[in-house]
């Protein structure tokens, strides 16, 4: 009789999802950090828009991490 791999497969999916979204969150934090640093170095008209976009991106990645953890 073959062992049931379904539960292992689901566990593997979950681990992949959490690790993947976690790494992505780190990347989003790096973007925010770099954008704030660069906007201090170079001041241009669209800096505000770029900063807002980087924070939206961070917020979305945070939601994705929460989703991968909490989602039943």
């Amino acid at each position: 009789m073959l062992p049931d791999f379904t539960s292992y497969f689901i566990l593997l999916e979950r681990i992949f999802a959490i690790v993947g979204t976690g790494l992505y969150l780190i990347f989003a934090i790096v973007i925010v950090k770099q954008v704030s640093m660069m906007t201090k170095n170079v001041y241009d008209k669209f800096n505000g828009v770029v900063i807002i976009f980087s924070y939206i991106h961070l917020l979305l990645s945070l939601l994705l991490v929460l989703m991968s953890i909490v989602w039943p």
Partner: protein
Amino acid sequence: MTRAKDLDTVAPDDVVEVKKNQVIKKSEIINPTTSKDFGEAKSVDAKMAAFRQKIYDVLGHTSHPLSSFLVKPHVFTFTEQDQEEEIILVMRPHWFTNVSWVLTTFFMLAVPTLIRFIPVWTGISLKYQTLGILFWYMITLAFALESFLSWYFDVYIITDERVIDIEFKNLLDKKFAEAKISMIQDVSSRVAGVSQTMFNYGDVRIQTAAEIPEICFERVPNPDKVIKVLQMMRQEEEQEAIDGRVR
């Protein structure tokens, strides 16, 4: 501290005693409006202003704030800028260089629609399918944002004193290079390929006598104008050196 009048006999840091109630004679005060030097300075300033106007005539004017070729931008500043330093030209890589990543982004957006036809995909639970698609869209957003930021913060600046190259590649690699205009030795440009010829953009290489031997403005619009302006700026700098107005 009062400065000594006879600078040949007094050391620069010596303090000179001034008696109280000492009245300065009227003839000792130089009237700037009648001074001959002032008149000469005024004419030199007018000459330099006319020269600077010639440079702006060559460059034309900017029509869009997100343009890759910003002439005398009013809003733009950078940290290393001196108070008296005037920004003449700010450049970014030509807009056409963005086409490849924009097309790639559209292709990436279409991937979740195409992936449904792969048999392995249907074996994954619906929950993780949704999460996977959302994750993919986030990767697409990150790719687009990173590509845009690499373009937006890849800035080349020509001021009245120096040329500056600020680069921001792959989010983790920041580069700042500058060379004084008086240090520029040779300037060359290269327009290669169909797109560069069609849209008139290319590389401008600036050889310097400074610590950084070469500064390269990559894929900038109107390289011929950039070369012309750098040539004029060098002439202006030489004239300033002759006039003894080097900052």
